């Protein structure tokens, strides 16, 4: 970790967003993770994304479990709401908060241990319920806090720092999320902010469950030859299926594009996901084609990244439960305490 706080001084040309905040206003405390940790790049991308979509910091709710990744909500958007849950139990806590206060933007940050090992059950159920959230897995394929054991997402055949080989099959969180019905699924790499920042922006503005599996090399325990989650390996095997720009309702469309097929997807909140295809045969609105493509590429040892699937008009848990428009925690006594006549009416229904 670093001993001094990051100086408040910033570049004189630093821009402000619609709320008058600079990107620096979305920062958190200084990271206590190892120098060079991929997670810090993801935090920086979250900061950038929140700044760019003009998110008011107090409208964000950050959730995490246990692990290196789960420390990171302390390192971005300090004024936001936050909850650091028990190991692997973050999805339930987030679900509960979301039920009570649906007017916030929900961001869960977790790691491969917190999500794919101890928290796998919780993860699966939050996804299949369609909780309206962005769930980022900072996936380094290793238990960094306990000094480098294989995690559940370590690829079969990959090597630990001291040379031991992983004999177990890996859990592919992207494929799992697709099977479980997530409506916005992407994979990215902490070392590629050009790809990651738009994916986070799109996810935060998506209604429904957005899962981002972000490969984030562990510089201390998983950045060696033989690892499949190292900077070098990921850069060599990265197969991006598309490049995305997120156009928020407010921001003008000014970007220039190189030739390539463009596809625009309008999301629920009016934001437009503008996708430029890099792979000709990839359709990111077809869940089953995505699954098959991913299985195929995974067998070849390729790491497929980009926006892999999106269902722009998805519904969420509140739609399923048919809750009222108002956030439940804002309901007044008058709405929450029905008169005796209402009880009588219900009882009549059972007679």
């Amino acid at each position, binding site marked *: *970790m*670093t001993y001094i*706080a990051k100086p408040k001084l*910033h570049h004189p040309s630093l821009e402000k967003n619609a709320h008058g905040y600079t990107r620096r206003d979305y920062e958190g405390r200084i990271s206590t993770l190892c120098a060079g940790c991929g997670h810090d790049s993801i935090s920086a991308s979250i900061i950038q994304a929140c700044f760019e979509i003009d998110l008011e910091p107090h409208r964000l709710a950050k959730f995490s479990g246990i692990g290196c990744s789960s420390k990171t909500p302390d390192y971005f958007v300090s004024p936001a709401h936050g909850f650091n849950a028990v190991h692997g139990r973050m999805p339930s806590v987030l679900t509960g908060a979301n039920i009570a206060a649906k007017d916030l933007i929900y961001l869960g940050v977790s790691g491969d241990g917190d999500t794919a090992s101890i928290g796998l059950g919780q993860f699966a159920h939050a996804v299949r319920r369609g909780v309206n959230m962005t769930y980022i897995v900072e996936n380094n394929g290793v238990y960094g806090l306990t000094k480098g054991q294989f995690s559940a997402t370590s690829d079969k055949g990959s090597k630990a720092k001291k040379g031991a080989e992983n004999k177990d099959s890996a859990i592919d969180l992207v494929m799992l999320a697709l099977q479980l019905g997530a409506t916005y699924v992407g994979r990215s790499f*902490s070392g590629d902010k050009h790809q990651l920042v738009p994916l986070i922006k799109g996810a935060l503005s998506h209604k429904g469950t957005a899962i981002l599996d972000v490969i984030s090399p562990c510089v201390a325990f998983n950045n060696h030859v033989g690892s499949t989650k190292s900077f070098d390996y990921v850069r060599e095997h990265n197969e991006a299926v598309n490049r995305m720009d997120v156009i928020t309702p407010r921001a003008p469309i000014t970007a220039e594009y190189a030739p390539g097929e463009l596809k625009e997807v309008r999301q629920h909140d009016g934001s437009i996901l503008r996708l430029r295809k890099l792979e000709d045969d990839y359709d990111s609105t077809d869940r089953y084609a995505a699954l098959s493509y991913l299985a195929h590429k995974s067998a070849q040892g390729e790491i497929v990244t980009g926006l892999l699937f999106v269902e722009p008009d998805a519904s969420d848990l509140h739609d399923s439960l048919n809750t009222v428009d108002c956030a439940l925690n804002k309901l007044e006594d008058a709405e929450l305490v029905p008169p005796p006549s209402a009880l009588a009416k219900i009882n009549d229904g059972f007679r």
Partner: protein
Amino acid sequence: MKPTDIRDPNYFHKVVDCQWACPAHTPVPEYIRLIADQRYADAYMINWKSNVFPGILGRTCDRPCEPACRRGRVEEAQQEKPEPVAICRLKRVAADNKGEIENLLPPLAVKKNGKRVACIGAGPASLTVARDLLPLGYEVHIFDAEKKAGGMIRTQIPRFRLPESVIDEEVGYILRYEPVTHFGTRIDSLKKFLAEGWDAVFVGTGAPRGRDLDLPGQKEASKNVHIGIDWLSSVSFEHIDKIGKRVIVLGGGNTAMDCCRTSRRLGGEDVKVIVRSGFDEMKASAWEKEDAQHEGIPIINFLNPREFTHENGKLTGVWFTKMHWADEGGKRKLVPTGEPDVHFECDDVLMAVGQENAFPWIERDIGMKFDKWDMPVVDPVTMQSDIKNVFFGGDAAFGPKNIIWAVAHGHDAAVSIDLFCNGQDARVRPPPGVSMMSTKMGIHEWAYDNDVSLDIRYKVPMVEPEIALRNVKVEVEKGFDPLLGYKEAQRCLNCDVQTVFSAGACIECDACVDICPMDCITFTENGEEAELRTRLNAPANDLTQDLYIQDGLKTGRIMAKDEDVCLHCGLCAERCPTGAWDMQQFYLEVTQAGCKPQAAIAKRSPQLASAK
């Protein structure tokens, strides 16, 4: 862009904006750190070696370093009034608190080398030449028309800005090397002088003649119309101790500011400065104008003096023509507005409208070339004239500048004289002494204080006006005390502690990019400089500031760092997992007389890390 060659001393020297801007290239951040560390004597000696007159310059320097200071740019858009570090006044903190330093001065030459050098004039340039040459064994003779050494430092700078004790002390540090002094001796013929057979002659006679406006009525009112610098030196020598109640100072330079403030102390109650041009175009430094206004002296602009009015041989006032800027054939020019002239009543006028060189004592038939302004032709690098053993420096070389330029000229001339006297070509200059050293002390420990202070510039405490305006000898600035000095020193960004990047060790994890508070660092595809500058993480619009480029990264991208507003906080190096970034202190000492070419070669070059 091509990768930056950081072995070229100029690259990192330029990053140390203050040192680069200083004519004498004083290693500013190093002595500021020593001040913060309360090592005042060491801080003083760095200054003494580089600029010879730390106590004097710490009060009077024109401070070319301060407008260049990175702190001013860094505070832009985040402080109400972005301000540089008070470099000049920190120098004074070192001088005020240094204690005994005689034992730190270089020893007197034990063996004379048999060469005789004459310095004509005993101002800052000549004294610098003498100081540089005396310890090497030269027999240096100093000539001056005045009774004491110091030149314009002693005659023209008012005592309320610079007490005479400071001049005596710092001139004394040079006179202790026992030059042969010929004070009270005016040289009136260079021809005769050269016939005395000197090995080398240095001319440091300054710009001793104040410009005269010669307006109608001046002759008649001559008793009350004075030339600024002559009047100031008469005040310094206590020939003059009062002035009329109503004083008009003509001119907008620093001499005008000294004149008006001195007048206020000699009985002037209604003192005005009247300037031909606008306020912003005045030659006086911003802080000198501020100090004058602070003492209740109005500065009136756009008035051109036309005529002196007088009655019975006594000055009664001045007529002025109103001026404004106009476009004449594409050039901005000051022209009369055509409005009726205005009259200001006064008892005395001080003319401070510029200074000139005067060389009536140099014969034009002895082989020295003069240019169209009747100035001797002097090589700007070697300070050598057409007579090979005659060298120039200070205001005598290229017209009126300031003390720090005179010192820089003196060093250069001394190097040339030393080379010349040893039969070497003065144009082949020994390179500067450069060293780079990592400041890494531990995991996140550095040999410098990398926690950047957010304080705004501290004001120098002043003596209350009631006291200051009563006596011309009361020094008006009290100077920073050690605590204020420490706080102001902490504002320094340590720009000499350089960010050195080793591409071979970099794994492109982006940690430095994410942590950099000023968005200086970008990893991107290479391109032409103009285009590259537009697509960095923060636009690099200041073209005077270099981009630090390194290639050789695994992805084929380059590392581009905009030096412009780097805080030198070292966070890039703290967050770097592989040591690809290191904070290395750059120290450059300019060549001085006696530097051997082989000894001056870089002691230590930047050290690069390799891949783990």
